[in-house]
């Protein structure tokens, strides 16, 4: 094969695909998104013809020219298409980008412009989970969205751009493969069973196998895969390899071998004998008396499980005011029950990690994580090591959406590396999840059933709110408590109402575990509450915008759920009123709308969401900036870049404070060995916590520099001018999003077509307009997916949608254009007056669409996703 112009020696294995052959030859520009020909991340040109290298037999490439994104251009000399992608800012995490670049190159004119009549059809084989595709459309068309220079408030290009588009940015596993050991996991075929015996004899005899870990080898430590600043937030109910399996797909045995193929072959030979136990899949049945108990043997206090004897991992029951009276005296009441299905994060990069023991005995784990410091601390605890004997490094993360706020692969590779090092074998151990494992063994979004009852007076002022939530956390608790508490928090607190009652429980079942997902529970609960409010507006006879205006909190109001007001949250700024006005006017501006054809009905809908800008109970970051005499600033900060754009924002903050061009700022991030502690990239904190630490460090450097006489004096200094900054996230503000849509519904087919989509956001001062727009568009796209088409189908604990071929991740043609409008506010707490805006845009979209469908067809959807079959049934009066 001639790879990117160079003849590479050797021949592939008989069953090898081209993707892994290229990577074995050092070509890491080809990424594994699906390994089944569905996502396009591994696209290469084979003698000039674009192919998915994961389904192309490697043997077919022998003697032929293979071109990856790395062969099309270099960061210094970008190809025309690569330049288009940089100039449009057409990536966020960038993991899918090399595949897009290669595919576009096959279709582009000499100037890099792709002129195809129907990009929706042409690019259906390229998935992007982050952007929502608008910026990619811009790249294809040649639209320029970013600038090289500029400070805060400018659309500065992401520093990694030229490396990302040329396939040179090293993601977690983009390291040389020589001498690396690979892990394959044996997984449970049973939803609930006790492991009676493990026979690893046949597996150990497979050539190349070096280690087989069974439950007997597991540290006897309970922990949670969920990671938070305070580890006591999450229940300790998980063992590294457990003797009881609680869902189909749970790992039982880990096989380590000199090749991935040998590990997989050996894993198939491990003989595990099980004693099958009764299982429960319905969360309501699970909390009923007599249900099989998943963690009944655990100590409630020690493991922090609310009621192991009822399968309840977390619960909140409380009331403020008098709800019964509020409902009884109401002029209008509405009531309904809404459900939301399981959703997969579908980050294009699967979970993966590589671990080894360094020369000085430090355990090093390179992993695709949003939370390197939290992973380090828990690994140290589980493996019985001091935290300073563990180093966790994250490269650029290929998409997270909450899914990488968990400890899911690091523990296995770390244990294996330590066991091997004890025997003097210090080879790195790697575990890379398959896409099927991402759907069957990695936590998904919590399915919830939410009942809402509202009462209002004749003018539409709320007199009572009652919310009841049942959340299916699956076999393990991990993020279950946090998601449940957060889900009912801002969704309820955003409304002023004298009487509120919330009863919520998160329940174990023998389904695959649920976990952290963008919005962290708000999406599911907001769907129900905002749908109920829409119905209430109809009852009262006022617009849904006016109903919100009469009931939302304003600065000065207490933020109340079902107990004493939240005290650690403040109105650092307030733009909800503006957001309501902006969205309402924008939607009105595109009237009158005409149906696409006969047989279509049109409707409009809106919904809002509030979100705290920082998670509760502390979120810490430390930044250190060294300004060298040569005028370059090196920033060390612990948070991770996973497509959220914080690397750009941090660069801008430093460039602005020190008066440098952004290209003079170098960022060293997400490495526990090179920066101070950081709680990590979750809860939308990359800009408002880590950014504030960076801003403070930059301010200190600035003060010292000014004391020396400013930038010109820098050349005369001996060493770098250093400044540090910290942020503890103790003061938290609130941000708002209002989404409004016009849809056309075709009852005969059930199709819902979004004709107009507007989101007004209250993000404070916008640090980078193009990135903000991208975060909003990406959040809306993910939400359109969960609203209309995505669902992980699980039947009796068995996942039926096991890949991108059956799970409908939105393609380019599935995502409508969304107009992003920005409220004019300045936050008192965030850096330069900014607020976080990465999870939040997701939350109000599904109810806005549902409310528009209700407006169009006269029947209210209660279940997500509102797939075509469900809407068809709904409009015929059937059950979903």
């Amino acid at each position: 094969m001639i790879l990117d112009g160079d003849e590479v020696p050797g021949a592939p294995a008989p069953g090898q695909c081209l993707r892994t052959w290229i990577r074995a030859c050092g070509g890491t520009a080809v990424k594994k998104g699906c390994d089944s020909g569905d996502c396009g991340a591994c696209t290469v040109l084979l003698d000039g013809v674009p192919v998915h290298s994961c389904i192309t037999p490697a043997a077919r490439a022998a003697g032929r020219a293979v071109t990856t994104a790395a062969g099309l251009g270099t960061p210094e000399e970008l190809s025309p298409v690569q330049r288009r992608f940089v100039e449009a800012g057409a990536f966020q995490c960038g993991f899918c980008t090399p595949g897009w670049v290669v595919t576009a190159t096959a279709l582009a004119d000499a100037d890099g412009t792709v002129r195809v009549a129907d990009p929706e059809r042409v690019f259906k084989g390229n998935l992007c989970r982050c952007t929502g595709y608008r910026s990619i459309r811009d790249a294809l068309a040649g639209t320029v969205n970013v600038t090289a220079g500029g400070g805060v408030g400018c659309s500065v290009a992401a520093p990694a751009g030229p490396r990302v588009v040329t396939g040179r940015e090293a993601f977690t596993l983009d390291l040389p493969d020589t001498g690396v050991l690979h892990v394959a996991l044996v997984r449970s075929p049973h939803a609930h069973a006790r492991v009676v015996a493990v026979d690893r004899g046949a597996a150990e005899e497979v050539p190349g196998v070096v280690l087989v870990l069974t439950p007997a080898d597991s540290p006897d430590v309970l922990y949670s895969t969920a990671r938070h600043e305070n580890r006591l937030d999450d229940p300790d109910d998980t063992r590294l390899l457990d003797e009881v399996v609680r869902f189909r797909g749970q790992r039982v045995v880990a096989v380590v071998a000199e090749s991935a193929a040998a590990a997989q072959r050996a894993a198939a030979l491990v003989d595990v004998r099980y004693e099958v136990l009764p299982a429960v899949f319905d969360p309501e049945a699970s909390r009923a008396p007599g249900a099989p108990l998943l963690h009944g043997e655990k100590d409630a206090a020690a493991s922090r499980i609310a009621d192991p004897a009822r399968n309840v991992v977390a619960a909140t029951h409380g009331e403020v005011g008098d709800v019964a009276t509020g409902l009884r005296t109401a002029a209008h009441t509405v009531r309904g029950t809404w459900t939301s299905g399981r959703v997969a994060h579908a980050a294009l990069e699967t979970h993966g990690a590589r671990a080894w023991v360094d020369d000085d005995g430090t355990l090093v784990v390179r992993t695709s994580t949003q939370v390197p410091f939290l992973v380090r601390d828990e690994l140290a605890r589980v493996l019985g090591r001091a935290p300073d004997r563990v180093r966790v490094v994250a490269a650029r993360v290929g998409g997270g959406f909450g899914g990488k706020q968990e400890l899911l692969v690091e523990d296995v590779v770390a244990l294996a590396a330590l066991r091997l090092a004890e025997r003097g074998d210090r080879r790195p151990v790697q575990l890379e999840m398959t896409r099927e494992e991402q759907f069957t063994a990695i936590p998904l979004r919590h399915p919830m059933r939410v009942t809402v009852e509202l009462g209002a007076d004749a003018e539409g002022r709320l007199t009572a709110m009652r919310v009841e939530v049942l959340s299916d956390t699956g076999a393990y608790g991990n993020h279950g408590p946090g998601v449940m508490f957060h889900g009912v928090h801002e969704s309820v607190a955003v409304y002023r109402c004298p009487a509120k009652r919330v009863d919520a429980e998160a329940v174990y079942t023998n389904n695959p575990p649920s976990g952290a997902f963008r919005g962290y529970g708000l999406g599911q609960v907001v769907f129900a509450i905002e749908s109920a409010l829409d119905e209430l507006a109809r009852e009262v006879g006022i617009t849904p915008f006016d109903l919100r205006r009469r009931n939302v909190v304003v600065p000065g109001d207490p933020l109340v759920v079902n107990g004493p007001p939240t005290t650690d949250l403040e109105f650092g700024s307030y733009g909800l009123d503006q957001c309501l006005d902006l969205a309402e006017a924008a939607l009105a501006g595109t009237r009158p709308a005409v149906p696409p054809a006969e047989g279509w009905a049109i409707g409009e809908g809106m919904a809002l969401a509030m979100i705290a800008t920082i998670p509760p109970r502390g979120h810490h970051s430390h930044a250190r900036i060294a300004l060298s005499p040569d005028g370059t600033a090196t920033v060390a900060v612990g948070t991770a870049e996973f497509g959220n754009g914080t690397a750009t924002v941090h660069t801008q903050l430093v460039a602005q404070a020190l008066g440098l061009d952004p290209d003079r700022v170098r960022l060293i991030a997400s490495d526990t060995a090179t920066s101070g502690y950081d709680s990590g990239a979750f809860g939308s904190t990359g800009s408002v916590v880590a950014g504030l630490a960076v801003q403070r460090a930059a301010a200190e450097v600035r003060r010292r520099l000014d004391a020396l006489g400013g930038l010109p004096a820098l050349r005369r200094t001996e060493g770098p001018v250093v400044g540090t900054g910290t942020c503890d996230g103790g003061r938290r503000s609130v941000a708002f999003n209002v989404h409004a849509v016009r849809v056309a519904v075709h009852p005969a087919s059930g199709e819902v077509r979004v004709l107009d989509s507007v989101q007004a956001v209250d993000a404070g001062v916008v640090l980078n307009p193009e990135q903000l727009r991208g975060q909003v568009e990406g959040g809306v796209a993910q939400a359109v997916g969960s609203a209309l088409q995505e669902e992980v189908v699980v039947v009796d604990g068995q996942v039926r949608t096991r890949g991108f071929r059956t799970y409908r991740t939105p393609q380019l043609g599935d995502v409508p254009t969304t107009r992003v409008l920005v409220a004019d506010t300045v936050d008192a707490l965030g850096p330069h007056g900014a607020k976080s805006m990465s999870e939040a845009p997701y939350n109000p979209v599904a109810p806005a669409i549902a409310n528009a469908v209700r407006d169009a067809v006269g029947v209210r959807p209660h279940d997500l996703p509102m797939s075509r079959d469900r809407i068809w049934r709904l409009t015929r009066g059937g059950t979903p």
Partner: protein
Amino acid sequence: MDLTHVETYRGAHDREGLRLRPGERLLAGGTWLFSEPQPQVTGLVDLTAMHWEPWEPLPGGGLRLAATCTVQQARAAPWPSPTLAERCADALLMSFKVQSAATVGGNLCLGLPAGAMIALTAALDGEVVVWTPDGAERRAPVADFVLDAGVVDLRPGEVLRSVELPGPALRQASALRRAALTTHGRSAALVIGRRSADAVVLTVTASVPRPVVLALPPTETAAAVRDAVAAACGATGWFADPHGAADWRAAQTVGLAAEVHAELVEGAA
């Protein structure tokens, strides 16, 4: 993905080379085989090494598509009107990149309900040519070749050589309607109609586990078309998978069939 149990890879260059050893599987162009783990497969035999002509004209204006003809080559074959072939190719879930490698024969042999090359060739009255292990060949209508979802009428040692499309069917007016849960997603119901001399021939795929073909009089009312399609497909059984529930697929199919019938009748009027 890597097929970790595969130990041999060879090209088939002649009929003798097509004789499979235990554990061997024929490999076409696409390749679906590499998209899922294949723990039973220990050897691959590359059919594309046969270098068959992608398509050849047949006497009487017909067309023979080799099993190894790619979807892209099939799009570009000399159709009297290329529209139906193009629309069927577009109905496939696979991108244009896969279409340049995936083959007509591979699509037929997978036997998936949503296999749009099955739909195309069944709707055009196609006949498969199967090489039998004794060196002879046998023929069968495409609609009979697919037995069930993922099950085709290929006995051990048999190889699909080609599919032959008769001239008259290629020249008849056709219409196509499709339903799916997403606009460019996998077909949940696909109805193709062809206007023969005395009938409208409807071919239903995707919503049924195997193609259902029925010839209806042009004079049939919409209601009668719906009833006939519902009865014929109901007898075969409606197909359900994550790409659509059976009740919705049934409703879509009968509705689309009525539209196709109407289009072909009105178009001729």
